[in-house]
């Protein structure tokens, strides 16, 4: 499978050199547009599921929310068609408020609204998540490839032992050990979050990244080993290409396909670590905010935060999907060449 991918990417490159660049670009643009369009119904479906779960709670304040907000476009529409005050109109109102007013509802009538409560928390969570994902990829991929190239030797064993241990350690254990060793014994970094101190972000990021590094390194290792067994690698080697360019130019691209396709799942997994880290290092983020609203049973806040997090994660997923299309021409071509088949899929999704 990967061999064919390699060949088609080479063929495409040759075609590009001949001056067929615009065609390829058009396909890429088409792929990106389709992917983005597919992403909107996906978000709506998730929102609908979460909203339904929260709405039908006994005593849920969602159900008591008025459908009229007072003097906007949706109100005049609702009055003109005399819309009934039911679950669906409330869902429409909720979505409309998010899109038009960036209003995720308010838990008490006097509060300023969820958005103003969590504006600075989103920044912290995003920072942790993005640096965590970045660190995971920057460390994990080279580690896995290094292990693959040293297969069966001492370095490979050391890497695989480390990754097995890291992937089995829960994030709070890592956080505790790091905090005790680095903060308490060596007193190098502050334990708890200080808003003005960038050093306070180091330990949380390291904790988030360590779990991800293990899984990325294992994945990169196994996919690199698989690619190195392909006949086209042997062909390149026998052609006399230096090993460096065989690995970095030809093998790496195909080896990255499974890693990039797993990026979405990785981000969702790292979010778990982010919650723990925010709780442990007392970083004011969305995770600690959600746990607080959970302890006071504030469904509005839980739903609002969940919606914001889902939108952030889906955007990250979209980016990783588009990246996937760039690396894997097969996907790109599938989107570009069979519009009829895709249309049906979009309608279904």
């Amino acid at each position: 499978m990967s061999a064919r991918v390699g060949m088609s990417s080479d063929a495409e490159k040759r075609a590009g050199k001949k001056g067929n660049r615009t065609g390829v670009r058009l396909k890429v643009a088409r792929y990106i547009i389709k992917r983005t369009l597919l992403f909107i119904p996906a978000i709506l479906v998730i929102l609908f599921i979460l909203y339904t779960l929260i709405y039908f709670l006994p005593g849920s304040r969602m159900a008591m929310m008025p459908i009229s907000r007072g003097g906007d476009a949706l109100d005049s529409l609702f009055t003109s068609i005399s819309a009934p005050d039911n679950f669906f109109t409330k869902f429409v109102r909720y979505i409309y408020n998010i899109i038009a007013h960036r209003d995720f509802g308010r838990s008490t009538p006097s509060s300023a609204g969820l958005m103003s409560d969590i504006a600075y928390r989103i920044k912290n969570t995003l920072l942790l998540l993005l640096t965590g994902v970045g660190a995971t990829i920057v460390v994990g991929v080279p580690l896995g490839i290094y292990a693959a190239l040293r297969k069966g030797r001492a370095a490979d064993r050391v890497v695989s032992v480390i990754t097995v241990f890291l992937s089995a350690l829960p994030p709070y254990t890592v956080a505790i050990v790091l905090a005790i060793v680095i903060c308490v014994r060596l007193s190098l970094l502050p334990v708890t979050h200080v808003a003005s101190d960038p050093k306070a972000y180091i330990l949380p990021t390291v904790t988030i990244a360590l779990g991800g590094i293990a899984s990325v390194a294992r994945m990169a290792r196994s996919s690199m080993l698989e690619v190195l067994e392909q006949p086209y690698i042997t062909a390149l080697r026998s052609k006399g290409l230096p090993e460096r360019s065989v690995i970095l130019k030809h093998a790496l691209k195909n080896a990255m396909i499974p890693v990039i396709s797993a990026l979405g799942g990785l981000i969702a997994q790292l979010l778990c670590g982010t919650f723990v880290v925010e709780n442990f290092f007392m970083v004011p983020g969305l995770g600690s905010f959600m746990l607080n609203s959970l302890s006071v049973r504030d469904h509005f806040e839980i739903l609002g935060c969940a919606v914001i997090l889902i939108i952030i994660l889906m955007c990250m997923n979209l980016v990783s999907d588009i990246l996937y299309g760039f690396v894997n021409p097969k996907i790109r071509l599938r989107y570009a060449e069979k519009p009829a088949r895709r249309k049906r899929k979009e309608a279904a999704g």
Partner: protein
Amino acid sequence: MNGKVLRSDRAGGIWKDALRRFCANRIAVISLAVFLLICLSCALAPWLTKYSYTAINVHNTLAKPSAEHWLGTDNLGRDILTRTLYGGRMTLRIAFASTVTALIIGSVIGLAAGYFGGRFDFLISPVMDIVASIPVILLALVFEAALGWGRGNFMYAIAIAAIPQFARLVHVCAASVMGSEYIQAARALGVGPFGIISRHIIHNVAPALIVRFTGALAESMLTCTVLGYLSIGINPPTPEWGNIIYHARNYIRLAPHLMIIPCAAISLTGISVSLAGDGLRDALDPRGELPAARGLTAGFLSLFKRRGAAN
């Protein structure tokens, strides 16, 4: 069966070969044994310990390990060994229940999508993509909020979050099997859908599914303890590895063993499951080389005879 393996040097069925490869892999056998031991001791907790996991003794708090309390006592004087065993019972029960549920539902969805293809396929794949992109922790929060707190309702969230990986795996595998000629031949011979699924597809999917199952089991165990640690899991005083660690957190300077013991239990379980899973993956790979034919007993004995040259 032993005698047969000893006599013939030829490859047996895929399962027999896999068993032979697995037994030759020392690390995998040991970690499987460790995992089974942990499961067994947690399952037999009521018979292994003489204390109740809620029995408080204020005269003997934060005790060091002794003959009376093998692993010491916690801040309320409860026996740590008892609580760790019962906690493992809860954690492993949730992990197994959610993973098995996900395995069954995911396989059914994947089989249906792979076998019937067409419209069903187009409907299922985007739905699975959507479910896979919801983080399990958000789903757990919403389920706990919707169905009631601290009674283990997050289990459904863990199960739902694990469904897509099984569904995708089975789907891809089933679709590739359906495209092969022997399925056409079976159809031409008049084998029905049930026969094709049970005789051909399941046999092809099972090895990959078993490996995926061990991975998902380790993941859902970690998720369960993370939720317990964030106190959205099981309510105390019912012990669960995550909430034991959460409550031991305050005593880390006074009595670090309160925390170290459940942490070690989680890590040991996780490591043994993933090492056993790696061993299974290597053993079930039909391309892997068969070790020299040995009886099972000989394989087990070699665990203790030769050291070095592992893997």
